[in-house]
């Protein structure tokens, strides 16, 4: 294909400007030299306004997720890999095999093209690792000050095998609650990079695609009720959502919930609770008690589930409370997060 551009995109020193979103040559160049080149697949190469895909199966899953994270780059990941993992995980939690993604970019005028290239490459690598193709996309540019560098929305399509019926309303009293690993890594990794917080830590985000972990779990545990990834609002929010959907209560053992020492220390210092902090590479699963041991073994056998644990059980509770038995011997309520998570003063 002949390219009507005089010079290639300056991915070292160039900046995004309004022409990159205006539908002219500059935009065509950005799409072909960066997005199409990095995401390389047949559908994208066709250069049409849509990707025409073969029917993937009898049941398809679809999910969408917008990513507005600041800073764009954080220990253990960046907005690009996160945009892939977020949507892949939303599909995987329903038992779907993720196949295709779309990617919508809103770029802020002045964003260094080098940053954009780094994000796009990371996104491409994450998609390759997860075995999904980014088959269609869109780019818009907003004036300086009207965006935060880059916002990415990804929509995913996956296929769900017949007979799989995982849903948030399936938890039953007596069921066992499993967690695939340590809590709070992503949230604290991001927080450690935010301006004005002034603490350094070796905490890495756990951002990862969970579909293979989910598949191993489903294979080992045919009675699996549901899976969910505890992202924003953390474990507390996820469990309250499930309790409400299923009309049940939950009882957790605080000392069974895995949290890295560095995350606990940072939370302690900042007055935050790791049970409310976001994760991007963990899943919560609920299964009947007789299959819990097999489910735990399957999680622990996977590289992303080595620190998996059984953290509690589903109980009858008209109030749909999630309670935590503290190591201390008391019991507390693990409530919905109210407002934004704010540090205490004293």
């Amino acid at each position, binding site marked *: 294909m002949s390219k009507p551009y005089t010079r290639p995109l300056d991915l070292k020193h160039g900046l995004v400007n309004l022409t990159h979103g205006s539908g002219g040559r500059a935009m065509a160049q950005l799409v072909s030299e960066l997005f199409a080149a990095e995401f390389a697949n047949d559908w994208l190469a066709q250069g049409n306004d849509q990707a025409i895909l073969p029917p993937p199966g009898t049941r398809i899953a679809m999910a969408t997720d917008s990513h507005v994270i600041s800073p764009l780059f954080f220990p253990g990941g960046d907005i690009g890999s996160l945009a892939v993992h977020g949507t892949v995980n939303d599909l995987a939690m329903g038992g779907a095999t993720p196949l295709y993604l779309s990617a919508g970019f809103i770029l802020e005028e002045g964003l260094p093209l080098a940053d954009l290239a780094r994000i796009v490459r990371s996104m491409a690598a994450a998609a390759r690792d997860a075995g999904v193709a980014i088959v269609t996309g869109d780019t818009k540019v907003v004036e300086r000050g009207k965006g935060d560098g880059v916002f990415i929305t990804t929509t995913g399509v996956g296929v769900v095998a017949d007979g799989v019926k995982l849903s948030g309303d399936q938890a039953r009293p007596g069921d066992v609650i499993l967690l695939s690993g340590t809590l709070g890594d992503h949230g604290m990794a991001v927080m450690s990079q935010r301006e004005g917080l002034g603490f350094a830590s070796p905490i890495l985000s756990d951002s990862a695609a969970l579909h293979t972990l989910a598949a191993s779990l489903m294979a080992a545990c045919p009675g699996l009720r549901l899976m969910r990834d505890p992202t924003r609002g953390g474990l507390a929010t996820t469990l309250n959502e499930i309790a409400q959907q299923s009309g049940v209560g939950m009882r957790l053992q605080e000392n069974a919930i895995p949290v890295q020492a560095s995350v606990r220390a940072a939370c302690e210092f900042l007055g935050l609770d790791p049970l409310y902090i976001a994760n991007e590479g963990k899943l919560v699963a609920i299964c009947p008690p007789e299959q819990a041991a097999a489910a735990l073994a399957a999680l622990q056998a996977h590289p992303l589930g080595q620190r998996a644990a059984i953290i509690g059980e589903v109980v009858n509770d008209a109030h749909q409370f999630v309670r935590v038995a503290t190591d*201390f011997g008391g019991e507390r309520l693990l409530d919905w997060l109210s407002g934004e998570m704010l540090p205490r003063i*004293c």
Partner: protein
Amino acid sequence: MKYVDEFRRGDIARGLAAHIRTLVQPDRQYRLMEFCGGHTHAIARYGLTGLLPDNIRLIHGPGCPVCVLPIGRVDSAIALALRPDVILCSYGDTLRVPASNKMSLYQARAQGADVRMVYSTNDALQIARDNPHKQVVFFAIGFETTTPPTALALLQARQEQLANFSVFCNHVLTPPAMRHLLAAGDAVQLDGFIGPSHVSTVIGSAPYAAVAEEFAKPVVIAGFEPLDVLQAVAMLVEQINAGRTEVETQFSRAVTHDGNQKARARVAQTMTLRDSFEWRGLGQVPHSALAIHPDFAEFDAELRFALPYRHVPDHKACECAAILRGQKRPQDCKVFGIVCNPDNPLGSCMVSSEGACAAHYHYGRFVQGATA
């Protein structure tokens, strides 16, 4: 986690609880006020009430910094924040405190105010350095714990001649509030105080002696960890049984008789005692708060912006006043958990997790289970 887990050990807690059960005299009531929100939080978070015998009642006190901030002061902060030339810096919890006309600093931010949450006064100073064409105001709140950082910020601002920095000072003092609670005509019946933790690391244990002596109430200064609170309860029970009314320090790993003298000196240099100050719930309390010292008047936001003060009454249905005085419990309030909840706080006790209502809502409401 070292230096934290040791103070949260369940086996020791159960031992202490058993010890307390052997100490209490069954025909006696022990009404103990924990002054600080930090204690309230620990009691709720770790379910300490459930470990204690029925005749020990823990009564939540007014020691939650955002809870006692009167609406009029928050209104002033909001008015400041809405000025286009101002960046208002504040500690986190303050942003959600409900003020007049359904406003809060959060609401102000949505309306375009530049409100920044900071973790330290250093952040506020840095924002002032980075924004020389803006007025940067630090909304200073809190008890004696948070006064030294404000004092240091004032000294630093003076040294750097940071002309665009100022402090809206709302620091309040603990001993005058304790005295006020005990002296009030409708005072709640108390048998002893669990005394402030972090506050006492600054002011020391000495200032409570007058309160203990004058009102014949024992005070045990306790740390914020759950084992600290339990040990303090045991010490108070022993004092009450023996008829003693002394100031004792359970939190001896951090509190001395005279406190942190360097910190106190900086505070004395930069701030001065107000004749009177309004506390939410307690009303006007004489000599209970600090203002910027006249020597540092150039950094006093109240003078720089000629801030007027207007008393604003609490919402009629809100029982925060009685709760902050220990006369009512959160669950005694008609609007608790229904109209007033952490997402839509009507009163300030529902805002901070140190507030009696928020602590009970978040951690304890399944105990009586009537509010879901």
